[in-house]
């Protein structure tokens, strides 16, 4: 812990911290560009000069390159250092264009701030400026290279931190150019971070282009609703339209960066088909009338058939408060039929995790520091993209990554891939736990698992990572059991499992021993349950076997839906009440490591101004109401229904008082303690059934999983992400492709019991053999295929038809 003096103030900082950060620690900010906490120091912008007066280093030095040491006396205001900074910023500005008014970075531009802070007010250079030709970089990033000050932050972010390979530095001296070899879409799923990281306007947000200035945006800290990792985000909106999302900073979860799905997946908030008006039996009503109708009809049904005839379906994307109140409603009606995920496999995985995780929980920050990462049945880019980024940071520090998965898992870092068919994953986990390899009769798998065991035993901070779709409830339990076997003084092993939604863990926590959706389907069919209340969930699409669920849901007498998106449940509901999207409300989620995190309201709901007609300007009307502003937070709707406090903090206090395990709800923030359920509360049997009952269509097993874009409901509704949507594809191992007579890149016809569709064939040696793989794509022929299932299929070449 070195102690040094900066500007006559003594400061003690941790070992290894540089002088620039040490100064920041006592609120002395010196202009700088190239240094970034996540990227480190390279001393290329020459702007953070300080005068080192005494100590081991002396003279004017770049503060970011000098580690703080004992006995240093540093001045940030010494004449020599100030003069140097003034000159450097003037040089950086010589070629900078005169285009701040038309630059989207204006207002949040580090160059603007640092130019003024560096003491450069007036341009003295009268010569000509260098110019560049811009590149087309895809639908997300707009490039304006003339603005570049060559701080190298972009290439360090894109290549070093995010592991992208198609972007870099070209040229020499004053011809340095940051871009791709030729025009084209940036390939990295983390390309959006260039927008946040560029200190000036070279890389700006294309979907947000010319929409707003930062001072007009309504922003608030929020949590990303796209996956279960709970990354911190800052949504910003204007004129009732959510216009962009930028990364928030949370060192325990995402750090400084987020994925493109989180950044550009906000379209569901402004979706033109979003239902905004309450309905009862197809007729528009006020919210109060809808609430009264919902309460009365549920009570009437309960009076007629008993409380158990009403089921309540919560959701992994609804807030914890909303789900809690839904359960409270069930309790008041006298029904124990509440479920919080319509997808059986994912629901079991989440419950199993909530029950078994305990002290095995690891955050993304722990993953970044891990020295051995083993992914079993996990595909981070599909299930939780920021995890891939965390894994890459571990690899950069020397960690080893081993992937055991039937899919050709793409990671932005070096890794070893063992492609095993899905049914072997559980056996691998059992073998890891017990050390018995008898069930694994495969000649290659046995030694691989043996080495895996020895590697885990030798590692200090290993992390086992799983995915809900592949492992299911049983797999997650086996994963936790396997991890527990390796706990020792030297081996601090942990587990992370990617779940289906931002609040999957929260839902599982509430319903650890309750019924599951399969039990509800049986009850619908037998007429034991006649009413269903859906909270931000869509059993028609989200169930593990949607065809079966849809048939059963037809028996219902009453369907109530509370939602903010145009789901099938919302369209078919007898009573519909519009709720608010995450960015429009405050609430909390429990992420996949059991961390309770709060989010705040960024914008008010309402029909976006841009959607109010095609006129040259907004309507010229005076009115006191906002069009489309009826949606209320789901917890508020349910709160009114149950006569609970309308104030969120008061509501949280009552909920915490009712549920002692949720004490943390009274003071939620990003550093809240993790929440874990009782380890032995699971009533539902933990089997993991991936096979669909009916499999008469062919003889090739087809594994269905989710894609980066197209399989997740919220991101599916986002127009900016449409460009990343893949065409229907089937992945095969080359040997299976040869047997079927198909070639890489060819088009084929995929026939299953769900129908026929045209797909493109892709082959990969990283695929498990004797298995075909496809992604669920919503609103396509592949919509009915639910991730985490295996059905039989037939594949024929198009020419053969």
């Amino acid at each position: 812990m070195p102690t040094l003096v900066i500007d006559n103030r003594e400061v003690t900082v941790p070992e290894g911290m540089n002088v620039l950060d040490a100064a920041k620690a006592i609120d002395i900010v010196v202009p700088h560009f190239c240094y970034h906490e996540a990227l480190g120091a390279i001393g290329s912008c020459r702007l953070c000069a300080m005068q080192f007066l005494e100590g081991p280093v002396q003279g004017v030095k770049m503060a970011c390159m000098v580690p703080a040491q004992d006995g240093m006396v540093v001045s940030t205001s010494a004449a020599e250092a100030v003069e140097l900074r003034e000159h450097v910023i003037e040089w950086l500005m010589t070629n900078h264009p005169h285009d701040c008014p038309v630059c989207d970075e204006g207002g949040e531009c580090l160059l603007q701030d640092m130019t003024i802070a560096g003491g450069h007010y007036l341009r003295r250079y009268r010569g000509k400026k260098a110019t560049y030709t811009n590149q087309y970089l895809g639908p997300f990033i707009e490039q304006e290279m003339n603005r570049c000050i060559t701080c190298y932050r972009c290439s360090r972010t894109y290549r070093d931190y995010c592991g992208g390979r198609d972007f870099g530095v070209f040229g020499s001296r004053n011809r340095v150019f940051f871009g791709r070899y030729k025009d084209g879409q940036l390939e990295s799923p983390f390309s959006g971070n260039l927008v946040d990281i560029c200190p000036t306007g070279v890389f700006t947000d294309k979907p947000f282009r010319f929409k707003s200035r930062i001072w007009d945006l309504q922003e608030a800290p929020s949590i990303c609703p796209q996956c279960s990792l709970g990354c911190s985000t800052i949504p910003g909106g204007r004129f009732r339209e959510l216009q962009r999302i930028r990364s928030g900073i949370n060192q325990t979860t995402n750090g400084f960066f987020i994925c493109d799905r989180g950044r550009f997946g906000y379209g569901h908030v402004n979706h033109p088909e979003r239902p905004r008006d309450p309905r009862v039996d197809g007729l528009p009503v006020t919210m109060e009338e809808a609430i009264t109708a919902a309460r009365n009809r549920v009570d009437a049904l309960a009076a007629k058939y008993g409380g158990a005839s009403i089921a309540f379906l919560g959701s992994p994307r609804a807030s914890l408060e909303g789900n809690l109140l839904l359960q409270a409603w069930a309790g008041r009606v006298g029904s124990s039929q509440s479920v919080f995920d319509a997808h059986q496999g994912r629901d079991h995985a989440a419950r199993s995790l909530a029950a078994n995780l305990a002290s095995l929980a690891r955050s993304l920050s722990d993953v970044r520091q891990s020295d051995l990462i083993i992914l079993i049945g996990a595909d981070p880019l599909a299930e939780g993209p920021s995890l891939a980024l965390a894994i890459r940071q571990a690899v950069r520090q020397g960690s080893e990554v081993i992937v055991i998965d039937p899919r050709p898992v793409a990671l932005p870092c070096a890794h070893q891939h063992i492609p095993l068919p899905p049914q072997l994953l559980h056996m691998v986990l059992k073998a890891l736990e017990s050390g018995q390899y008898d069930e694994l009769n495969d000649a290659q798998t046995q030694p691989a698992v043996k080495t895996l065991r020895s590697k885990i035993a030798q590692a200090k901070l290993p992390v086992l990572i799983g995915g809900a779709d592949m492992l299911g409830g049983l797999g997650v339990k086996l994963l936790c059991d396997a991890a527990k076997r390796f706990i020792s003084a030297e081996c601090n092993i942990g587990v992370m499992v990617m779940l289906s939604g931002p609040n999957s863990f929260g839902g599982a926590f509430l319903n650890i021993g309750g019924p599951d959706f399969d039990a509800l389907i049986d009850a619908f069919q037998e007429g034991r349950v006649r009413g269903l209340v859906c909270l931000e969930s869509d059993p028609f699409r989200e169930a593990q076997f949607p065809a079966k669920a849809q048939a059963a849901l037809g028996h219902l007498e009453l369907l109530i839906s509370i939602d903010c998106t145009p789901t099938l449940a919302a369209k078919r509901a007898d009573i519909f009440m519009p709720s608010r999207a995450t960015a429009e409300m405050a609430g909390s989620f429990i992420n996949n490591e059991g961390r309770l995190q709060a989010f705040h309201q960024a914008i008010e709901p309402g029909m976006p101004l841009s959607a109010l007609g095609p006129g040259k300007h907004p309507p010229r009307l005076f009115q006191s109401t906002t069009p489309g502003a009826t949606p209320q937070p789901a917890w508020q709707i349910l709160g009114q229904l149950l006569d609970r406090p309308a104030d969120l903090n008061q509501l949280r206090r009552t909920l915490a008082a009712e549920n002692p395990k949720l004490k943390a709800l009274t003071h939620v923030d990003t550093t809240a303690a993790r929440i874990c359920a009782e380890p032995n509360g699971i009533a539902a049997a933990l089997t993991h059934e991936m096979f669909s009952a009916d499999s008469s269509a062919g003889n090739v097993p087809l594994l269905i999983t989710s894609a980066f874009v197209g399989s997740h409901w919220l991101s599916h509704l986002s127009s900016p992400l449409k460009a990343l949507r893949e065409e229907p594809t089937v992945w095969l191992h080359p040997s299976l492709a040869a047997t079927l007579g198909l070639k890489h890149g060819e088009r084929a016809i995929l026939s299953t019991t769900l129908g026929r569709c045209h797909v493109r064939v892709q082959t990969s040696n990283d695929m498990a053999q004797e298995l075909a793989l496809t992604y669920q794509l919503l609103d396509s022929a592949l919509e009915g295929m639910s991730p985490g299932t295996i059905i039989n299929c037939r594949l024929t070449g198009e020419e053969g038809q």
Partner: protein
Amino acid sequence: MTLWRDIKGTLQPFWITLGYLFQKPVTIQYPEVKRTPPPRYRARIVLTRDPDGGERCVACHLCSGACPVDCISMQAAEDADGRRYAAWFRINFSRCIFCGLCAEACPTLAIQMTPDYEICNRDILNLVYEKEDLLIDGCGKDTQYNFYEHAGIGVANERGRNQDEYGPVDPKSLLP
């Protein structure tokens, strides 16, 4: 001495008033008679055009950011040639206090104050001016300036063809 001061204080104003009685009156019989305000008088706001006739406003939001009463709102958009312009631009003159901060903030000299002070109206909605109402066919006070000639992003001229620019560099060149 107090008495003398009081007498002087009473009589002197009367004397001055009496003096003005025989001078030409300064009151103007508005609206029959109208004064010409000085050219820098701050009244009705206009949007000007550059010497080529293009809209000067680039919808940078600096005027609305500077406006102390929030009477300016706009939406920026992009033209086919990359020019940033205001898709719509609205000033609510019933709220405007004519402080001139918007004109001062404008980096492209688009928004300017004119001496036209006669904008009273019986219907308050008529005081909400849209872009069509604000745009004039002229440069206003500066007849030379064209922002895009200097902006350096290749709108008025091709990239690197403005007066103060070198042509685009070739980053793949190996020359020293």
